[in-house]
């Protein structure tokens, strides 16, 4: 079976508006990676290492400067308008800051059903039912559909964001620092939820994080990024026991250990 996602030599550039002249900054520099169906590939690196850009380029949320992205056999970077819309049903994203990623002016029900409406997946009442279902699936209550994001805690908001992503029934989720902004307590709960969803829905995750501590629990494999490149990619267990790159070693050393 081929990989669900094949990224080859992907580069992303930004125009930095410096004081003097605009100059191109290469955020992602020739990255290649595969994500197998049903696995969780963790992408770890310090801030500014280009992991977020990589994730967004894969979803075509930012333009790629070079390279290719094959998703389930089709070239994502060459998709037509309609095909792109179809692709967006299959690949979804959850962002780091649950406060910023939810439209504060929409009630939770509307947020979650936006994808259903865009892709015309269900008529009015059936849509409501689906929204209720989704909310319950992520650990909220159907009644929460009428409330607004600001009435929820951080963890709950992230659940809403997950429900929104799941509404279009994707097979692939980019979790862009999806738990980084959460308290340790909530973080564990959301990670549990993600694990459960992966199990029940057969999802594939690209899990972006800056912290080995969270990755350890959820990832099948870990890719370590540094300055736009992937410096190491290995199964979780082997990476944790024998990190090869200095970047991975530093990250590993930084996990706070409680002196039991």
């Amino acid at each position: 079976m081929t990989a669900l996602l094949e990224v080859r030599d992907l580069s992303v550039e930004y125009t930095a508006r410096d004081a003097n002249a605009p100059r191109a900054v290469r955020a992602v520099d020739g990255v290649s990676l595969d994500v197998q169906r049903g696995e969780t590939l963790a992408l770890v690196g310090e801030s500014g290492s280009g992991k977020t850009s990589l994730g967004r380029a894969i979803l075509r949320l930012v333009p790629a400067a070079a390279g290719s992205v094959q998703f389930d056999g089709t070239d994502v970077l060459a998709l037509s308008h309609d095909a792109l819309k179809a692709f967006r049903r299959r690949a979804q994203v959850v962002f780091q800051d649950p406060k910023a990623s939810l439209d504060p002016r929409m009630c939770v029900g509307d947020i979650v059903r936006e994808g259903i409406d865009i892709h015309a997946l269900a008529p009015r009442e059936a849509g409501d039912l689906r929204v209720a279902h989704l909310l319950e699936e992520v650990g909220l209550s159907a009644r929460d559909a009428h409330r607004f994001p600001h009435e929820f805690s951080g963890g709950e908001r992230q659940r809403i964001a997950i429900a929104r992503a799941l509404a279009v029934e994707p097979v692939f989720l980019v979790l862009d620092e999806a738990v980084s902004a959460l308290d340790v307590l909530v973080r564990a709960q959301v990670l549990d939820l993600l694990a459960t969803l992966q199990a029940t829905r057969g999802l594939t995750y690209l899990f972006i994080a800056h912290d080995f501590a969270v990755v350890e629990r959820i990832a099948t494999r870990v890719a370590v990024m540094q300055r736009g490149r992937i410096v190491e990619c290995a199964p979780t267990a082997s990476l944790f026991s024998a990190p090869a790159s200095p970047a991975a070693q530093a990250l590993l050393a930084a996990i706070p250990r409680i002196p039991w």
Partner: protein
Amino acid sequence: MSPLLAICGLSVDAAGARGTPSTPILRDISFGMRPGETVGLLGASGSGKTSLALAVLGLLPPALRAHGAIHFDGHEMLSASRGARRTLRGRRVAMVFQEPLSALNPRMRIGAQVAEVALAHGEHNTQRAARTALDMLARAGLTDAEDQARRLPHELSGGERQRVLLAMAMLLAPALLIADEPTSSLDVTVQAQVLALLRAEQRQHGMALLLVSHDLSVIATTCERTLVLHDGRLVEDVPTRQLIVAPEHPQARALVAAVRRGPPPLEHGT
């Protein structure tokens, strides 16, 4: 030894909009700190940790009202005059904030920002203040301090900024340092360095440290004693070791469990 800080029955309320009842943020908090003691304040977000820290400095937002008593260094902070509180802040009690970027004045050179602490507390010689600031910046682990002092905050990395904040807080060797989530916005690798610096400074000057965090692993490495705050109430006040071994309150137990659990038994794919 007489306590450095004694908080008795502290409550903080958010004044509600007209007509609506006020919401309690902190309820009836009491604890004390001896000079040189390191205390962790553990709690989930929204538990009122930051409000407690700000209340000690008398920096609560105007919408928040505090009741009870905060005795610090021979003063009653809640009833003290503005001037009296002002002279204590920065000199006897200092604070390090969570977001080092936003906590620094974006258009003031960092050297000047550090030196300002000295100038605000009786130092009139600007050059001497600048020199003190440079020494402190160097001690805080800022490489090439003289050059860095001339920079603006956005030209520094996150870890460097937090060192600047720490230098600012430590400049006049306060009796009490309050660190509010000093590491949570930093990269993991930098977190460890900043915590190490904090511990080193605390030990060298023998000041008291109140470390506020939601992460027990941060507190556990630094503090002798841990307070657990839940929903505005103090639910645990025990030595850290005891908390880790035998947390009593359910919330405390959850917080401990969150960092204690190893990798979960996940079944990958099929």
